[in-house]
C-alpha cells in the first residue's frame, strides 16, 4: 500500500473535502475562507473564463435555506460596496452554493492599521454608505465587523457575509439562534429585537476600533481638519459613544446620521454628538481655517509694513 507523507496527507485531505462541481460550469480550485455557515472557495467559471468565488454550505442538509437567503439578499442589492452574485444552485450531494465575484484586497482592520485617521474615516464613510443603501431596501446586515469588510487596492470597500441579513420589515421571522459577533452585536440583538440601529451599534464598535489605534500614527493628515491625537478627538469619541449607546433610542436614528456626523468631524466642523466648549470651538475653527487665517494675517502684516514704509 502506498505510504503517504504528512504533507501528502494534508493535501489529499483538503482535496477530498472539496465539493464536487463536476456537474456545473465551475471548477473549484482552493479554499480561501471559512465562516459559520459555509466555506468560500476560489474557482473558475469555464463559460466566461473568469475567476469567481463560490460559497458552499459545510455539509449536505446544513444551512441550505440560510445560504439561499443570503444569495437572494446579495442579488437584490446592486451597489459598488456589495459583491455581485452570479449564480446559485444545489450540488449532487445536497449542498447549496452560490457564485459571486471574487473580492481582492485586504481586511478593513489591516488596511486601517496602515493609513492615517482621516483616511480610515473616509473608508468608514464608504462602509456606512453601503449599509445605508441596504437599509433603504429594507435589509439589515446584523454581523458587521472588520473581518466582514474588505478594502480593495483603490480604496474600494466591500461589505461581505450577509449571512445574518434579514428584512427590517419582517419582524415575524425571529432570529432562532444567537446571531452576531461579541463586541459588535447590539445588546437588543441578543434578545432577537433588531432594526437599523443594531447596525448603527456595530458601526460604532468598528469606529471605536479605528479611533483606538490613532496613537500609533506617525503624522497628521494634511488637508483635513483631523488631528492626530489628543483633546481634539473628543468629538469623535462622543460619536462612538452615541452610536454604541445601550438604549437604541439614544443612538443615531440611522446610519446616514452617523456617517454625516463623522464627515462633519473630518471636515473640521462641529458634530451633533458633542457640545464643545467655546475655547475648543475657537481652536477647531482656527485649525480648520488655518490657511485662510494665516493669509489674512499676512495681509495685515503687509499693511502694517506699508504704513511704516510710507512714513
Amino acid at each position, binding site marked *: 500500500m502506498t505510504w503517504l507523507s504528512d504533507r501528502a496527507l494534508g493535501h489529499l485531505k483538503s482535496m477530498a473535502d472539496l465539493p464536487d462541481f463536476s456537474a456545473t460550469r465551475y471548477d473549484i480550485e482552493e479554499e480561501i475562507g471559512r465562516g459559520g455557515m459555509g466555506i468560500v472557495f476560489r474557482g473558475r467559471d469555464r463559460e466566461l473564463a473568469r475567476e469567481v468565488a463560490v460559497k458552499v454550505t459545510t455539509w449536505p442538509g446544513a444551512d441550505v435555506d440560510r445560504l439561499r437567503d443570503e444569495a437572494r439578499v446579495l442579488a437584490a442589492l446592486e451597489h459598488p460596496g456589495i459583491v455581485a452574485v452570479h449564480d446559485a444552485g444545489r450540488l449532487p450531494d445536497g449542498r447549496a452554493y452560490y457564485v459571486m465575484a471574487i473580492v481582492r484586497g485586504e481586511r478593513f482592520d489591516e488596511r486601517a492599521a496602515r493609513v492615517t485617521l482621516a483616511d480610515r474615516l473616509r473608508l468608514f464613510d464608504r462602509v456606512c454608505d453601503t449599509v445605508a443603501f441596504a437599509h433603504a431596501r429594507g435589509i439589515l446586515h446584523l454581523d458587521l465587523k472588520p473581518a466582514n469588510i474588505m478594502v480593495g487596492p483603490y480604496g474600494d470597500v466591500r461589505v461581505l457575509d450577509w449571512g445574518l441579513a434579514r428584512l427590517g420589515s419582517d419582524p415575524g421571522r425571529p432570529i432562532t439562534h444567537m446571531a452576531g459577533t461579541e463586541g459588535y452585536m447590539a445588546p437588543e440583538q441578543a434578545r432577537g429585537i433588531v432594526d437599523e440601529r443594531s447596525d448603527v451599534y456595530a458601526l460604532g464598535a468598528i469606529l471605536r476600533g479605528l479611533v483606538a489605534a490613532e496613537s500609533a500614527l506617525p503624522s497628521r493628515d494634511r488637508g483635513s481638519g483631523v488631528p492626530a491625537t489628543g483633546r481634539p478627538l473628543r468629538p469623535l469619541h462622543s460619536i462612538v459613544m452615541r452610536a454604541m449607546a445601550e438604549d437604541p433610542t439614544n443612538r443615531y436614528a440611522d446610519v446616514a446620521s452617523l456617517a454625516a456626523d463623522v464627515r462633519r468631524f473630518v471636515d473640521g466642523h462641529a458634530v451633533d454628538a458633542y457640545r464643545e466648549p467655546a475655547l475648543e470651538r475657537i481652536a477647531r475653527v482656527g485649525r480648520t481655517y488655518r*490657511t*485662510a487665517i494665516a*493669509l*489674512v494675517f*499676512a*495681509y495685515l502684516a*503687509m*499693511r502694517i509694513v*506699508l*504704513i511704516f*514704509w*510710507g512714513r
Partner: protein
Amino acid sequence: MSKPVLGLVLGGVLGVFDGLSALVSAPNDPAVRAGIVGIVIGSTMKGVLTGLIIGWFAKRTQSLASGIAFGLLVGVALAACVSLMQKMSGQPAYYWQIMLPGGILGIIVGYATFTYGAPAPRLTRTAQS
C-alpha cells in the same frame, strides 16, 4: 456657493476693507481723506472683478497651486492697472502700496474659491440610450 460667486462676494468684501485701509496707511493725506468714498468704490469694484475672474478660473482648475498663482497674477495685474490710471490722471502712482496688497488679496481669493467654493456639478451619461 459656486466658485465665481464666492470670488465675487469675497473680492468685493475684501475690496471694501482694502479701500478703507487707505485711511490707515495715509491718515494725514487730505487727498485720501477727501476721496475715500471713491477709493472704496474703486477698490470694491476691483475686488469684485478680481474675485469673479479668479473664481471662474478656480472652477476650471484641479490644482490649488495654479489657483493661487492665477489669483496672485490677476490681483497684481488689476492693481497695476489702477496705479497706471492714477498716474495718467496726474495723481501719485503708489505702485507698491496698491500692487502688493492687490497681490495678497488675489492669493486669498484664489485659495478661498478653490478650497471653499462648491465644485461644478458633473454631468453623467447612462450607457443605455
